C-alpha cells in the first residue's frame, strides 16, 4: 500500500517507451491540456480533481484514478510525465482524471482510513467513496468531451478506491480494475494479518502518511523521519508497542497509527471497513490484478475477487495473478524476481494483452476481450495458466500431516507420534529475513529459509524427494494442534520448495557463474495467525496452559509446481520480526503491556494419530 509510491517512481525512471533518456513531460504537454477543478460532492464538500483532455477534438472515454497519495503535480502548467495505467492506454485516446480523495491533499473534508460503505444512505450527509465517485462521474459526464463511459483503476490504496466505487456504481462506470486493492486491514491487508500487527510496515507508513498537512494542501510533514540501517535491532530496542507513543515517535493520540493500534480486535471499527461484504449487485466489468509476491495486499486482490464471485451472481469479473511484487505489473519490464527467471517480459504481455484490451473493449467497444475467468502465473513451471473458475476445478484439498522427526506426508502419523516443541523467546524473535536492512526486504517472500531452519525455535517438516511434479493451485489451510506454557502465541506457517542437491540455475549475465541452488529453501507462501483469535476474530480467548487446542487458519492462495526431485517443506515458528510485532505470549491487550509481560513460551506441536496437525494443500489432479 504504502511504500508503493516510492517504488513506483523507481520502476518508471528507466522508461522504455520513449526515445528520451530522462523522464520528461514533453509528450503529455504536446497531446493533452490540463485543468484543475474542484468538484462539489452532494454534501457540499469539494474534491480537487485534475483532468487531462486530449488536444485533438473528439469524444473520449474517461479513465480515472482516485488516490490519497496526491494528484500532483499541482499547478495549471505542471504536467505529469505519463498518464494512465500503461503507455498503450496513454496513447489510445482517453480523458485521464486524477482526484485527491476526500480529506487528502487539496480536497476538503475529513479523511477516514478505509471509509466504511453506507448501504442505506438516507440524506445527502451520508457520504462514502461510492457516493463521492458517483458525484464525480456525474460532474465529469457534464463537463468533459466524453463518450458517456467511465473507467477507474488504481494500485494499493487507489485499488481500494476502485473497489469502493463498485457498490451502487454510477451507470456510466463500465470498467473498473482494482489492483492489489486493500480490502480488510484486520484480516489480511497491510495493518494486521489474522490479528497479528504488521509493525514494520505500519511504523514506516504512518510516520509519513499522516502528519500535519501544509496550508496549501500540497504536502504533509511526516511525524518524524526514522533512519536506521538494521530494522531488527531498531524495533527490538524500541521494546513494547506502547513505547511508540512516546516523545520520539507518534505523539498525536488522534493519529491513524494510534487508531490502528487501539483497534486490536475485529470490532465494529474494522468490520464496517471491510468493503468485501458490500460487493453485491456489481454492474461494471471488473479486472482484479494482484501479485504472488505482494507483501502488502495479496489478500485484497484474491479476496476482493472471491467476494464479487460469492455476492454478485452473474458478475463480469476476472482475476489476473502474476509473479509480481506490489504494483510491479505497471513497470515497463518484469523478467525476474529473486531466483526466478521468467524468460520474457511478463509486463509486456500483461499490459498489451490484458489491461489495454480490457479498457479499450468496455470503454470504447474496440477489439475484443476474451480473457479467461482467471489468468494465473504458475511459478515453478513458470507458465501462465487459464482457468474458468478460481480456485480451479481439479484442485483437491489434500492433508499433509506433520510427522515425528521432521517428516511430512499424506499418511497419518502413528499413535505414539508425540509432539515437537520449541521455546519462543520474545527477547530473540525469529527474523523474517536474513538480510540486515533498514527497510522491508521485498524479496523476503521468496527468500531462502535456511537461515530460519538452523534456529532452535523453528520447526521443520519435509517430505521425501518428490518422484513427480506436484502442482498446488488454490488455498492452503493450516490445521495445528498445539499446547503451550503461556496464554497466547503467534503461529507462522511457511510453505517452502526445497531444491535438490546438487542443482543450479544458469547465469543471467555473461561472465557470471550459475547460481547454486542445491538445498535452497525457497519460500512459496507464508502467513501468521495470532493464536488468541482462533475461535473468533472479534472475541479473543486465552490459551489454557498445557491444554491441547486447535489453531486453524488459511494462507493466501498459491499456483506453484514443485518439480520432481524437489521436496515440500513446512516450517512453523512463533515470531516473524520485525515484520510482525512480538507476541508477549501472555493473553491481553498487547498495546498496554510492559517489557516484563513479554515472557518465554514453550510450545508443543502435536503429530500423533489422535492429535494430527496437518496442512491442507490444494493438489491439482494430473
Amino acid at each position, binding site marked *: 500500500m504504502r511504500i508503493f509510491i516510492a517504488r513506483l517512481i523507481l520502476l518508471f525512471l528507466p522508461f522504455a517507451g520513449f526515445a528520451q533518456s530522462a523522464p520528461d513531460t514533453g509528450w503529455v504537454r504536446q497531446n493533452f491540456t490540463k485543468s484543475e477543478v474542484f468538484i462539489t460532492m452532494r454534501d457540499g464538500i469539494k474534491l480537487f480533481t485534475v483532468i487531462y483532455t486530449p488536444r485533438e477534438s473528439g469524444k473520449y472515454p474517461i479513465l480515472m484514478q482516485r488516490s490519497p497519495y496526491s494528484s500532483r503535480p499541482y499547478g495549471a502548467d505542471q504536467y505529469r510525465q505519463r498518464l494512465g495505467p500503461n503507455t498503450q492506454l496513454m496513447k489510445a485516446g482517453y480523458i485521464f482524471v486524477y482526484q485527491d480523495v476526500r480529506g487528502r491533499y487539496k480536497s476538503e473534508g475529513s479523511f477516514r482510513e478505509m471509509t466504511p460503505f453506507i448501504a442505506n444512505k438516507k440524506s445527502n450527509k451520508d457520504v462514502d467513496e461510492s457516493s463521492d465517485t458517483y458525484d464525480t462521474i456525474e460532474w465529469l459526464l457534464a463537463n468533459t468531451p466524453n463518450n458517456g463511459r467511465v473507467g477507474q483503476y488504481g494500485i494499493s490504496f487507489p485499488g481500494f478506491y476502485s473497489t469502493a466505487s463498485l457498490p451502487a456504481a454510477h451507470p456510466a462506470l463500465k470498467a473498473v480494475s482494482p489492483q492489489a486493492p486493500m480490502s480488510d486491514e484486520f484480516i489480511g491487508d497491510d495493518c494486521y494479518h489474522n490479528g497479528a500487527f504488521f509493525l514494520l510496515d505500519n511504523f514506516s507508513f504512518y510516520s509519513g502518511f499522516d502528519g500535519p498537512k501544509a496550508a496549501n494542501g500540497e504536502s504533509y510533514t511526516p511525524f518524524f523521519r526514522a*533512519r*536506521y*540501517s*538494521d530494522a*531488527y*535491532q531498531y524495533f527490538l530496542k524500541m521494546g513494547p508497542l506502547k513505547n511508540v507513543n512516546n516523545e520520539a515517535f507518534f505523539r498525536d493520540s488522534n493519529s491513524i497509527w494510534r487508531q490502528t493500534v487501539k483497534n486490536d480486535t475485529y470490532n465494529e471499527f474494522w468490520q464496517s471497513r471491510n468493503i468485501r461484504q458490500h460487493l453485491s449487485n456489481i454492474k461494471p466489468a471488473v479486472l482484479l490484478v494482484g501479485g504472488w509476491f505482494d507483501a502488502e495486499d495479496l489478500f485484497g486482490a484474491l479476496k476482493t475477487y472471491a467476494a464479487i464471485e460469492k455476492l454478485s451472481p452473474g458478475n463480469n469479473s476476472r482475476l489476473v495473478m502474476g509473479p509480481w511484487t506490489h504494483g510491479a505489473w505497471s513497470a515497463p519490464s518484469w523478467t525476474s524476481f529473486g531466483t526466478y527467471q521468467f524468460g520474457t517480459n511478463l509486463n509486456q504481455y500483461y499490459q498489451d494483452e490484458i489491461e489495454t484490451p480490457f479498457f479499450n473493449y468496455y470503454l470504447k467497444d474496440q477489439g475484443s476481450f476474451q480473457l479467461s475467468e482467471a489468468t494465473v502465473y504458475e511459478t515453478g513451471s513458470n507458465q501462465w495458466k487459464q482457468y474458468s473458475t478460481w480456485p480451479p476445478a481439479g484442485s483437491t484439498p489434500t492433508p499433509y500431516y506433520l510427522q515425528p522427526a521432521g517428516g511430512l506426508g499424506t499418511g497419518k502419523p502413528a499413535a505414539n507420534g508425540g509432539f515437537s516443541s520449541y*521455546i519462543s*523467546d520474545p*527477547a*530473540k*524473535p525469529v*527474523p523474517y529475513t*536474513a*538480510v*540486515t*536492512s*533498514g*527497510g522491508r*526486504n521485498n524479496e523476503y517472500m521468496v527468500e*531462502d529459509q*535456511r*537461515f530460519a531452519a*538452523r*534456529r*532452535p*525455535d523453528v520447526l521443520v517438516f519435509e517430505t521425501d524427494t518428490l518422484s513427480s511434479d506436484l502442482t498446488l493451485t488454490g488455498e492452503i489451510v493450516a490445521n495445528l494442534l498445539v499446547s503451550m506454557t503461556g496464554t497466547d502465541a503467534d503461529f507462522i506457517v511457511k510453505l517452502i520448495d526445497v531444491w535438490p*542437491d*546438487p542443482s543450479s540455475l544458469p547465469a543471467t549475465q555473461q561472465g557470471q557463474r550459475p547460481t*547454486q541452488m*542445491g*538445498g*535452497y529453501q525457497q519460500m512459496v507462501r507464508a502467513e501468521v495467525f495470532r493464536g488468541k483469535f482462533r475461535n473468533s476474530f472479534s472475541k479473543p480467548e486465552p490459551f489454557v496452559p498445557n491444554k491441547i487446542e486447535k489453531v486453524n487458519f488459511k494462507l493466501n492462495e498459491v499456483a506453484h509446481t514443485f518439480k520432481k526431485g524437489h521436496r515440500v517443506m513446512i516450517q512453523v515458528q512463533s515470531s516473524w520480526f520485525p515484520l510482525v510485532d512480538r507476541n508477549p505470549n501472555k493473553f491481553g491487550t498487547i498495546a498496554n503491556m510492559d517489557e516484563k509481560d513479554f515472557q518465554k513460551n514453550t510450545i508443543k506441536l502435536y503429530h500423533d494419530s489422535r492429535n494430527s496437525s496437518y496442512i491442507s494443500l490444494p493438489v491439482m489432479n494430473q
Partner: protein
Amino acid sequence: MRRSLFYLLFFLLPLVLVAQHEQDSAWIREHYTKKELYIPMRDGVKLFTAVYLPKDASEKHPILMNRTPYSCSPYGEDQFRAFWMNHWKYYLRENYIIVIQDVRGRWMSEGQFEDVRPFNKNKKGNTDIDEASDTYDAIDWLVNNLPNNNAHVGVFGISYPGFYSTMAAASGHPALKAVSPQAPVTDWFMGDDFHHNGAFFQMDGFSFYSGFGKPRPQPTKIGPKGFDFKVRDNYKFYLEAGTLQQLADYMGDSIKFWKELYAHPNYDEWWQARNARVAMYDVKPAMLVVGGLFDAEDCYGAWNLYKAIEKQSPATNNKIVMGPWYHGQWASRDGSRLGNVRFGRNTAFDYQNNIEIPFFNYYLKGKGDDPALPEATIFFTGENSWKQLPQWPPQNMTPTALYLQANGNLSWNAGGSSNAYREYISDPAHPVPYTEDVHFGRTREYMTDDQRFAHRRPDVLTYVTAPLDEDLTLAGPLTADLRVSISTTDADFVVKLIDVFPDNFSYPGDAPQAGRTAGGSYPMGGYEQLVRGEIMRGRFRQSFEKPVAFKPGKTETVKFELPDVAHTFRKGHRLMIQVQSSWFPLADRNPQQFVNIYTAKPEDFKLSTIRIFEASSIVLPVVK
C-alpha cells in the same frame, strides 16, 4: 632516529620499485634457467627439487628455498612456475636462486611421507631422519653443487610450508642465515587447522584430508582427487553426516593420518611429539615469523611459534610481523580489506616491500643497511595503523578483567551476586552457524563477519558495554575465565570478542546503506565485527591430556586463552562479548556427553542447558 628512517623507507621504497622493469614471464625465461634434480638425503632417499638459476654470472647469488608437500610443480624443465603473478618476482629481479622442493614422500620425491613429522632431537645414525635433517642435507648439497651461489640460504613458506620452515630453522646448517615461517603449522591439537583447544575442526579436516591424505606409494606428478560433495551447503552436509564416525566412513579406510587423528582424542604423547615448538631450541638463523590476525588456519601457530622461540631460544634474532590478513594474504596483491571490513591501505604491499624483501636481502645478500626491524611490527585494526614495538605484548599492556553481568552488560568491576547467571539451551540439532548465509567451502571472511545473525539467536548470550567515551586499545592474548554450570557432562564454549560499530557508521566515500543490495556495499551501521573468537572443549578445562567430565548442575571454571589481538575500539564503538556452545560446521558438535566424540553415535547427542555466572570475565590485554 631509526624509527624515522623506517618511516622514510615506507614512503620511498614503493617509488623505487615502481620505477623498475616488470618481471613478467618473458623476462624470467630470459634471465633464468630451470633444473630439476634429485638431492640425496643421508639415508639414501632422494628428494625431487626444482631449481631456478639466474643466468647472471657477474656475482654469486643467494639461495631462497621453499619446501612443500603441495608440489613444486609445474614439472618439466621447460615449465616455469608463474612467479610473475606474485611478489616472488622481486626476488627474481634480485637474481636469487629459487629452490622449491617436494618434501620426503610427497609428489615426485622418494620415501615415506609423515604428516607434521615429529622433530627428533636425538638423531644418531644416517637412518635417523626428520624434516630438519632433510633440510640440512638439501642445503648442504645445494651450496656445494649449485653454480655461483654465495653459500647464504634462506627458507620461507606459508602454512604447511611454514611448518617446514620451522623445521629448517632447527637444521643447524651454517649456511642457513634467515628463515621466515609464515602462518606456520605448529600444533594441530591446541590451535592450528584441525583442532582448537581439543575441539575438532571437522570442515577443514575433512575437506583437506579427503584429498591430501590419500596414499602416494610411488613418486607421481598427478595429484589426488578430493571428496565429491553433492551437497554444496556445508552446514547441511556436516549436520546430515551427524557423527565423526560417518565422516570416517566417507573418508574410507586408506587415509592414515585421519585414522591416527581419531585414535588420539586427547593431547597425549603422540600429539605432543607433533608440536613443532619442541624443535625450537638454540635456533641459529635470523627468524621472521609472519602471520595474519584474521587467519582462520594458523593464527595460533604464528603467535605461538614466535613466543616459543622467545622463551626457548632467547639468543635468537627473532621478530614477528602480524597484519590484518587472512591465511596468506600478505603474499597477495591486496591487503586493504577482508570481507566487509577495510583497513585503509594496501598492507600486503607494505609488508612485501618494507619488511620481507629487505629482511632476506640483508641476511642473504648482505645488501643495504640492516633494516633494523623492530621486535614486533603489528597492524592495529580499528585505528588501522602499523605500530613498531620493542616487545610483544607491549610493555604498557595490563591484563584487565571485564565481567559478564547477568543483565547483559559488561563491567570493569567485579561484584554483584556471583549466583546470578544467564542461561541458554544448546541444541545439537540446531547448532549455531559460524557465519550467516549458505556456503560450500569454509569462508575466509568469517573472521571479520557481522555477528548480528548470532546475536538474534536464543542460544547465544550477548554482553555489551555502553558506547566508549575514548579509544580502547588491546594488544596481546585474551583469557576467557568463565564460571559455568551445565545440565549434562560435557559442552563446548565459544567466546567471541566483537567490535560494535555506531549505528550511523559508514566508510568514508560510501553513502550510508539502507540495506544490503546486490553488488552494493554492506550496511555497516551497527555492524558487529568479529575481532577474535575461540572455542574450548569443556572436558579439557583441567588438562588437555586428561579430560574430566562435568557434574551436571555443578558450578565449574572453564578458563582458556584466545589468540592475541591488536585492535583499537574507537570512541563511540561498543565492546561486545558473545558466548555460545557450538560453531558449526567449523567445529564438530559436542554431543554434550562425556563420551569419546570420535566414536559417538547419533543417540549420544543431547541438549544441554548452559549457565554463565556473573563472576565470569574475559581478561583483556588493555594498553594504556
